[in-house]
């Protein structure tokens, strides 16, 4: 054990060293240094001449050693840290960096630990609850909670809570750790309470994501464990205690859906007609025996005690095959369906060997579809994704306004109230009244007044702004509204641009970005993963070290650092592509590892050996035997990766680090909501988030359903 810890710490040190070099280089990469900063400062604030300022900057460079070559600077820096714990001086705070870090370290650690603890405690308990009550209300509720928790971007949650606190509750506790009178006060219960009042949104937001993840992992691990024979042994061997009615329901695991979905052969035979009848009958007991495995558990203790074993197994499986199946959503266990194998080879099976009649064969896609169709969550996701893609493709046609058209008269118009019914009767296309915005001279509040005398209605398939669809210029739109008579159902932004049109059109850039990143990452992954997994040896070794390095990088800081390298004055299109490149660079590693694991396990299967035995060469084996079987997995990961990229992109753009205008993505639209003041007055600027949420949620749902469906054989 000691040796193990020692080894791990050593390798951690090595990794830290590499990370320190990389971060140092990244920080140096953007143009300019403190000297340049100081120079501009001196010129603009101190009124110095160019030459004097230059001299001053040079002096500063000499003082801080910024004129030395990069490696010397690095050695200085790292030497100070290692020998004296000296991290240098902060230019911003004018204090030693070590002090600054030290001051914040404890608070950060405290918050992190609290969040982690809460996420573990609540997540695990909810996970147990969900697993034990599988397919009941509590389970469904916690699954929905988990989905939302993993889907809603943290920054958006923060915005919502802040908005709620600031404008609805009017909470005074925003933006600091303590109320003024407690800042310098010694610790007391009152001060602690004050701290809690300030800090709970942070803890809440940081906890939710981890909680959701824990919940899902716990639930599906536990479902796996509950199916283990040793649970049955425990049931069989031990008794005497009143069994808890709650836990007894556990055995509702593996419902009918599970059985019928799992054994496509059952269906194949059912269609095969009379000749196969006895064989089909042979399945039943096998099925029965299979679902017979999940056992009841005596009481809650048993479940808890079973955990470490589960974790271990799970980890083991993950490291062995790199498969995401371990995080399988519905906890369908990876248990083999060997019994059916035995059953199928039943006595009469071979009597009927020469099939009597031609049957329609179930191809792989058929089987996947058969399983997928039964998954309600997955189907919903699929439909949503399809709608989303259609909307994106026909965004120009659907947008009522030109998204770039500014309108001074309609700045920050709130979402219009739509009316379907008037004194003239029912209108299939609802109308809206123009809104006049005035400022209340006393309270400085904005007052919106509807001009009910005028009815604005867009024209169905009318002529509107000029756009191109598939390269064909056109000006017909589904609903064409005019500027003169505004019809902004989602309101307008600070330039009077129609939010709905902007959200619609911006979906294109967001999805293109996601598609591009995922396409690049997946291509690299599949290539590396297969090469690494099939060839093994040295290539594999070094590719895996590379993967480990990328995985070890702290994600967010590296995005920032990398984004900082992009020159500020670059073309927006270049920025877009560079951003895509950065995102792909940091996203490929995880999947590469999974593909490798999958390849490794497939290349050990007998059919690959058999292909070798008939004389097939490596290219053929890879293309025909390994790739198709790996692809199903890749498709799933791709689906699940798109929402991740959408989220990161929106977050970076939200911070103003993403794509640059005139290119606009959803995150970019959200940028307007960063200012709390703005948000308070014009909350509708947050609508792009809803679009992001729908996208992320639907792709996640689709991916989840696919993951359960892509492996219909499971032998």
């Amino acid at each position, binding site marked *: 054990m000691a*040796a193990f810890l020692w*080894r791990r710490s050593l*390798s951690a040190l090595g990794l830290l060293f590499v990370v320190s070099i990389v971060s140092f280089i990244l920080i140096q990469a953007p143009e300019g240094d403190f000297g340049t900063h100081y120079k501009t400062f001196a010129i603009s604030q101190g009124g110095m001449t160019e030459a004097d300022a230059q001299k001053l900057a040079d002096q500063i460079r000499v003082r801080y050693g910024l004129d030395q070559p990069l490696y010397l600077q690095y050695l200085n820096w790292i030497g100070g840290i290692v020998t004296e714990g000296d991290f240098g001086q902060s230019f911003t705070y004018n204090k030693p960096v070590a002090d600054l870090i030290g001051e914040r370290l404890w608070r950060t650690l405290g918050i992190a630990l609290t969040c982690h603890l809460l996420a573990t405690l609540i997540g695990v308990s909810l996970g147990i609850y969900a697993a034990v009550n599988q397919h009941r209300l509590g389970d469904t509720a916690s699954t929905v909670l988990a989905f939302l928790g993993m889907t809603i971007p943290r920054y958006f949650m923060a915005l919502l809570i802040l908005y709620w606190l600031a404008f609805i509750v009017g909470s005074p506790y925003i933006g600091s750790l303590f109320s003024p009178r407690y800042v310098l006060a010694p610790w007391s219960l009152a001060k602690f309470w004050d701290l809690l009042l300030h800090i709970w949104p942070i803890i809440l937001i940081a906890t939710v994501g981890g909680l959701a993840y824990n919940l899902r992992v716990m639930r599906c691990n536990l479902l796996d464990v509950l199916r*283990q*024979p*040793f*649970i*049955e042994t*425990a049931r*069989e*061997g*031990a*008794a005497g*205690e009143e*069994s808890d009615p709650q836990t*007894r329901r556990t*055995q*509702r*695991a*593996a*419902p*009918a859906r599970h*059985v019928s979905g799992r054994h496509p*052969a059952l269906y194949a035979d059912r269609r095969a007609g009379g000749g196969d009848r006895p064989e089909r*009958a042979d*399945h*039943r*007991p096998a*099925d*029965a025996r299979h*679902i*017979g495995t999940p056992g009841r558990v005596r009481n809650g203790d048993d479940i808890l005690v*079973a955990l*470490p*074993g589960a974790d271990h197994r799970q980890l083991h499986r993950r490291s062995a095959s790199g498969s995401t199946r371990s995080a399988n959503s519905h906890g369908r266990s990876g248990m083999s369906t060997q019994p*059916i*194998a*035995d059953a199928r*080879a*039943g*006595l009469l*099976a*071979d009597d009927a*060997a020469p*099939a*009597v009649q031609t*049957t329609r*064969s*179930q*191809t792989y896609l058929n089987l996947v579809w058969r399983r997928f169709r039964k998954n309600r969550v997955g189907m919903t996701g699929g439909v949503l994704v399809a709608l989303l893609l259609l909307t994106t493709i026909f965004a120009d046609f659907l947008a009522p306004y030109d998204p770039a058209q500014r309108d001074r008269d309609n700045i920050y118009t709130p979402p219009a109230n739509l009316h379907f019914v008037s004194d003239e009767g029912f209108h299939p296309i609802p109308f809206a009244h123009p809104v006049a915005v005035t400022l209340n001279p006393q309270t400085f509040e904005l007052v919106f007044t509807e001009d009910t005398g005028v009815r604005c209605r867009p024209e169905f398939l009318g002529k509107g702004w000029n756009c191109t669809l598939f390269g064909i210029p056109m000006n017909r739109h589904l609903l064409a509204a005019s500027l003169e008579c505004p019809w902004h159902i989602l309101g307008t932004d600070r330039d009077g641009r129609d939010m709905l049109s902007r959200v619609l059109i911006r979906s294109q850039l967001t999805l293109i970005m996601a598609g591009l990143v995922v396409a690049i990452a997946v291509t690299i992954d599949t290539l590396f993963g297969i090469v690494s997994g099939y060839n093994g040896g040295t290539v594999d070794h070094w590719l895996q070290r590379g993967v480990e390095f990328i995985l070890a990088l702290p994600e967010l800081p590296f995005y920032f650092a990398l984004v900082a390298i992009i020159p500020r004055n670059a073309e927006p299109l270049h920025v877009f592509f560079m951003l895509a490149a950065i995102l792909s660079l940091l996203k490929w590693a995880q999947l590469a590892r999974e593909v490798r694991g999958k390849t490794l396990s497939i290349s050990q299967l*007998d059919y690959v*050996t*058999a292909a*070798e035995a*008939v*004389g097939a060469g490596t290219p053929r084996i890879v293309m025909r*035997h390994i790739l198709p079987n790996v692809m199903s997995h890749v498709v799933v990961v791709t689906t699940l990766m798109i929402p991740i990229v959408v989220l990161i992109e929106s977050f970076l753009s939200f911070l103003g680090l993403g794509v640059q205008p005139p290119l606009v993505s959803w995150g970019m639209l959200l940028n307007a909501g960063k200012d709390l003041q703005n948000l308070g007055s014009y909350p509708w600027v947050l609508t792009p988030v809803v679009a992001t949420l729908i996208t992320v949620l639907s792709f996640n749902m689709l991916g989840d359903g696919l993951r359960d469906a892509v492996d*219909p*054989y499971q*032998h």
Partner: protein
Amino acid sequence: MSLLDVKDLAVRFKLEDHTVEAVRGVSFSVDTGETLAVVDESGSGKSVSARAIMKLLPRTAEIAPETQITFQGARIEGFSEKRMLEVRGARIGMIFQEPMTSLNPIYRIGSQIAEGLILHQRMTKKQALARALDLLKEVRIPDPEARLEQYPHQLSGGQRQRVMIAMAIANEPELLLADEPTTALDVTVQAEILKLIRGLQDRYHMGVILITHDLTIVEKVSDRVAVMRLGEVVETGTTRALFARPQHPYTQKLIASEPSGEPDVVTSKDTVLDVDRLRVVYHLRWGGMLTRQRRELIAVDDVGLEIRKGETLGVVGESGSGKSTLGKAILRLVHNDGGRVAWQGQDLQQLDKQAMRKFRTRLQVVFQDPFSSLNPRLSVRQVIEEGLIVNGLGGSGCERDARVRRGLEEVGLDSNALNRFPHEFSGGQRQRIAIARALVLDPEFLLLDEPTSALDLSVQAQVIDLLRALQRNHGLTYLFISHDLKVVRALCHRVMVMKDGQIVEEGTVDEVLSHPKTDYTSKLVTAAFEVIA
């Protein structure tokens, strides 16, 4: 009155849109001190019946109202869960098939056995552990004191099964349900476990219900037999009577499908395959960059063999003895670390990948597991014609198609199977497809790596017949790898016994099976043909 009397047992599974009857109208009884074997090929409801007695069925299953289960005069089928707890474990013990997963991996052996004792007999922890030690001694685990403190993963499969038995008899039950207790174990271990159960039965005067598919075990161990088929009992009777005069056609067929017959006599004198001092070493490596550790595992240790044209050489041994690796090394499907393999005088070891390809069509292979040996994404046609395509054989598409069809016919499959996918076939059918894949290349030599061990008995008999017929028609030479001596006797001319990568004995099948020279071989022979000596 019997110890346990089951009448009209029926179990139904509620599936999504319909109900499936797993067993129906099953009746049998077992007396104190008696062994009832419930036999059938896998998956015909025998396990479900056993679980129904213990009420260990999943929620989707329900026991039909007409069922009567009488245990020691009490009707237990309607027992509540609470009352069942007093029966289960205390008065009826159960042993499961899978000793690997039936023990909780995170508890020590001692406390797992003790758990049942503490709960049922209100013992203190100390008493329970002392009793656990006695039980471990009783199931004759070597070094029982140390085992108490060990975890399941530290024990071998056989030892784990002994622990399971210890747990099952801990409360001295009147009835023991053994659900395929030896299926997952090596043949030699099987015999010991069965002997142990027999001994314990005598000691505790237990009734035993032994669920199995292995007729040899049934014949040697049981007093009475119930034969099940498709969820129904088709025949019951005393073991002797049933084996002597099986009444039901299914039983007759089952008994007839024991591997039998002998291979044809070899006429040729030419040696086609000559293997000399073949050696395969695996280098195991683990640890990080600084603490790299290595170990060498010699899987095949200087093995030599010769096979004549048209001959079948059997290679037998327990799992892990290196027999599969030997086969793959001969075909160069794994690397080898020395030795010489000559096919009709041509040294295969010297050939590069390209040159080896010419020999691939002549030396073919059939694997053990018919499920992993066929790519699920390819249709049967694609599976079979792959060898023709990569070797440029069969000429035009039409000719190739004809060859594929001929190959399928030869293994007894209809040609409409061509466009179907592997998952639509049973294990036996899949194995036929795998054989067709090899045959279509017109090979001269077939490596058969346990081709029948994943199959049920009757299917196994058919595949053996098929292999024998193919050998006769094509003059094929076989290297037959197996752990099942009965199949070896039916198919092989000569046999080699392997242990730890080395050959311990070699000779004609008759010689080796009737006069084994080494202990290891005689243990294997005993296990295969006698079960309990």
